[in-house]
Every structure is written in C-alpha cells, then in structure tokens.
C-alpha cells in the first residue's frame, strides 16, 4: 500500500487494473491489489470465509447499531501507517473485533461494546521448544473472558533476526493451567513437522478479550529449539500429577481424579469423585507409573458424600500413596463423618 500527500492526488479515486485510489480523511491512498501468496491452509480458507461473512453481516445492522460502531471507532486508532495515525471506520472496527471473536469460537456481535477495553499484555517466564514438547511456563494468568492467542513459526535458520511474518496461529484460545500452556499437539497439527533442534522458532502472543474482540499488545519473542535432554538440563521439570490421563481407568474407582503435587508446599491438592462398591470403605486408584520416593506417604483431605437419599455429608479421608509392583497405588479410605459413595474429595491435604 502506498500513502502519498493529498496535494498530488486530492479528490482522485477509483480503480484501474490492479491499482485503486481512494481518499480517506484528507489523505489519498493508492493501493495495488494484493494476492495471497503461498499455498492456502484450511485455517486461511476458513478465516477468509468468515471475514467475508462478517463484512456482509454489517449491512444487516440497524442505523443505531452502525452509529454506535462509528462512535466507538472514533476513539479507536488503527495501526499507524507511514507515521500517520490511521483512523478506523465503524465497519473496520466491526470486522476487526468480530473476526477476533469468531477466531476464538464466539458468535458475531451486532452491538458495539459500550467502551474500549484495556486488554493486558501477554507475559510468560519461559518457553521450551523441543521435538517432543512445546510448552509455555509462568504465564501471567488473566481471568476469563481473556484467552491467549499463540502464533508460532516453523523451524527457521538461526541467522534470521526478523521472522515474525512467518508465524501462524497455533491456537486462538489458549487457557493456561496454573501458568502452563502445553501447545505441543496444536503446534504439530498446525505446522505439520516437529521443531528442529538448533533452528529458530518465532513466537507472537497476545491476550484476546473474547467478550468484545479487543486484543492486547503483541508480545514478540523467539527461541532456539533444543532437545528434550537439553530442556531438562535447563530446568524443565514436568508438573507432577496423577490424573485421568495416567491412571488405569479400568481398575481405578473414580469418576474423575486429579492429584497434583506441584504446590511447593507441605500439601498435595486432591480433586476427584471417588466410587467404590457399597460395602467397601475405600477407593483404589492405580497410576501407570510409580511415584518418586519423596512423594510416597500419607495425606488427609476432606470429602463430601451424597447418601442414597440425597443428603450431603462431610467426611475426612485418609490417603495412602505407595508403589506396588512398579505402579503407584493410591488408596482413599473413609475416616471421619458419614460414609457414602460417590464422594467428592477436594482441597489441600497435608502430606507426611
């Protein structure tokens, strides 16, 4: 796109072949029609289709709704172009915000947000990229409706210093799990090949307020992909937990389960719904791998059981963490209060 002083082409507008001239807010703009380069991905096709749909839907708004978008647009600056601050029109803002919402799986909104939204900037402590793992750590959590948009490139030469134009959206709606976001599967699905150790990966992240479509500042970074061994040597330690992903579901007496050790405190965090046979005063959970020695022991936690006639009863529960025949055995046994199953256990449990 070419921006030129209005003196030369003031009042001139229209298209000729691949060149379009238009007059916007005192500026004349000449633009050359651009064509998408490179192969179309499914995501690109979907996004272009949704943009078209969003643009068309603007025409269905009432005059009041359009005016509301125009009013909000007056306070919203677009990206600066050649040093001149471009102003957005109502339809521009409508399309931008709704494109963001649609990208995050939300519906198109007809009414303009009442006010501008100050979306926080993305921040995290570390990202590890290996052929087996792509994970962000220490993400500064933002509550809903904020979701993290992650854009990443494929493996690039480490000599490239500016490769953010090669990033594509890995996910538009990442929700961190206590500061962690494991996007390994999303990366492989989008990029198609594993990161190559020694190559550079470019990254862009920003928060998206999915309620309004406003976004925060884009945080650009890059990292060199390393091997899994190097990641561990650099301090990566998988968060220790026993949950539905790594227990024997056939034998374990649970409806849901998540025991998380990553508290750095003298408690483990219990969360689950335990089941057992009516006459049994315990529930067993069998994990696929043994627990580290320092995690074996006894913990107490609280529980709530529902009796057959629907009464909600409080319990205390004794949890024994042990390894037997190469797998971890967790037993939850009733201690205080009323015994009933199913029982929900939750909260921190001291461990000794």
């Amino acid at each position, binding site marked *: 796109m070419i921006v030129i002083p209005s003196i030369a082409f003031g009042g001139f507008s229209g298209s000729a072949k691949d060149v379009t001239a238009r007059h916007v807010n005192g500026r004349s703009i000449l633009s050359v029609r651009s064509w998408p380069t490179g192969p179309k991905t499914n995501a690109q096709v979907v996004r272009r289709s949704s943009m078209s749909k969003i643009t068309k839907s603007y025409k269905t708004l009432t005059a009041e709704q359009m005016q509301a978008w125009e009013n909000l647009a007056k306070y919203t600056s677009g990206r600066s172009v050649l040093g001149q601050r471009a102003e957005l029109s109502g339809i521009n803002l409508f399309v931008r915000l709704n494109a963001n919402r649609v990208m995050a799986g939300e519906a198109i909104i007809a009414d303009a947000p009442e006010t501008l939204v100050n979306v926080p900037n993305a921040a995290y402590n570390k990202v590890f990229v290996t052929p087996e793992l792509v994970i962000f750590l220490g993400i500064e959590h933002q509550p809903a409706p904020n979701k993290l948009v992650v854009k990443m490139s494929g493996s690039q030469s480490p000599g490239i210093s500016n490769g953010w134009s090669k990033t594509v959206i890995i996910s538009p709606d990442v929700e961190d799990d206590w500061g962690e976001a494991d996007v390994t599967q999303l990366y492989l699905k989008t990029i198609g090949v594993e990161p190559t150790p020694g190559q550079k990966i470019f990254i862009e992240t920003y928060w998206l307020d999915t309620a309004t479509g406003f976004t925060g500042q884009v945080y650009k970074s890059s990292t060199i992909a390393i091997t899994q061994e190097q990641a561990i040597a650099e301090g990566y330690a998988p968060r220790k937990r026993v949950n539905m992903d790594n227990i024997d579901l056939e034998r374990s007496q649970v409806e849901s389960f998540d025991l998380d050790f990553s508290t750095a405190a003298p408690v483990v965090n219990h969360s689950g719904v335990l089941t057992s046979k009516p006459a049994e005063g315990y529930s067993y959970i069998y994990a696929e791998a043994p627990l*580290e020695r320092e995690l074996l022991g006894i913990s107490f936690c609280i529980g709530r059981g529902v009796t057959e006639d629907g009464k909600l009863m409080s319990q205390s529960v004794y949890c024994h963490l042990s390894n037997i025949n190469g797998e971890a055995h967790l037993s939850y046994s009733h201690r205080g209060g009323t015994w009933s199953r199913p029982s929900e256990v939750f909260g921190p449990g001291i461990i000794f």
Partner: protein
Amino acid sequence: MFYSTGNNFGAGAIKFKEARESNYIVLNATVTCDSGCAAFLGAEVLEIYVPELNISRSTETGVVMFFEDSIDSYGTHYNLNKGVFVKSWIKDAHTICIEKLPFFENKGELTIFIQSLYPQLGQGSNTFKVTKQPLVDSSPDSYLRFNDSDSIIVVRENWVFIHLLLERCDYSHIDDDWEAVFENMPADIDAVLPLLHTASWSGSWFTGCARPEVRNQHWTLPRTERSNALQNNTGAPFSFAFIVRGDDEE
C-alpha cells in the same frame, strides 16, 4: 491479622488471622451472617473483599458452614446443629470466595469457620513432606478416646494442621462436659474447632456439627453443645483444620 474491606452477603467486618508463606496462605476467620437478608439471598457466590493477599488465586479448599437447629419433643430439647464443608478459593488478590449452597438460605444466622490453607499449583517444584505428632488426651483421668493413628497434629512455625478423630467416651462421663488435654498442641492455639459427625436424626440434610474450643492445650466441649448423635459415641466425629498460631495483634 487484618480486617475485610467488604463483602457481598451482608456480613459485617471480618477479622482474619493469617500465616503468609511464599506461595500459599493459611487464613482463619469466623464469619456470621443472616441467611435471610437480601444480600445473602442475592449472592450466587459469597465474596469477601480483603486488603491485598500474597497470592492472586488458589485452588479450592474447604470451610465449614454451620447453623444452629433444635427441636423440642415431649419436653426434651434436642440439639440438631448442622454443618458441612463448602468450597472456598481465592479469586484474586483482594477477593476470597465461598461456595453458597441454596439449602442455607433462610436458615437464620449462619456461621462460617474459615480454617483453611489456600495453595497454588504449578509452583515450579513438588510438595514436601512434614512430620506429624499424635494427638492423644494426656490428662490422668482420661475418659475420651481419640483414634491413635488418625488423630494427628503437624506443627509449623506459623500454623498447625489438626485432624482429630474421636472414638468414644467412657459411659460414666456421657453426660459431663468433655475436656481433654493435648500435650503436643502448641499453647498459642486458641480456636473453635468444628467437630463434624454423622447426624442420626431423620430429615437432616447435613452432617451434625459441634463447636469444641481449644485453648492452652485444653479441648473442651460442653454437654449442651452436643447432639444426641454425638452423645452416643456414634458418627465418627472429626475435626479437620489449619489453624494460625499467634497473629493476635491488632
């Protein structure tokens, strides 16, 4: 120690005792409120607003929600006090949330005992184990039996964890005020320690709950505070609490 700055369910100012650690916090408070007031009825989640905490969110932990209940039948007064664990969590550095169960609406004055540790996850390293000590009645004429292996205390510099499991009372003391002495309990522990137990009466939707006090190593539970269910040595009465040590200065 600090005071709340507000709440959304009609309670007054709430005094908190606290033990702040690097990545978790232990909080103690006793909150009373009218379960029939408009603010309580209108709240979906009970929120307590506080000065800035050292953590900005936590996992779910448990607090005890209690209310008094009784019935008079054929000239006898029956204590039917009830309590149940409800969930609590830190939503942000200024807001403590408590789960609200619809059952508690219009039940008169509610008391919420916050005696909880609020942890975080993903803290960069795993849990670490601590040392426990037994909690047994050390008075010479002991008539209360606490389970030897399951009644424990973990003593930390700024807080303790207590799991107390009462097994029985000698029949000769069944109508007395109960008292026990716990030598392993630090003398600076001063708290009401809710004792939850099976409710044997019909029509109860929650566990029974009594309110023994512990002060200067003495645990006391008056006869009038106990229900018949607790009186008859049934219902596996237990306490589960994280108690802040000291922190009494205004």
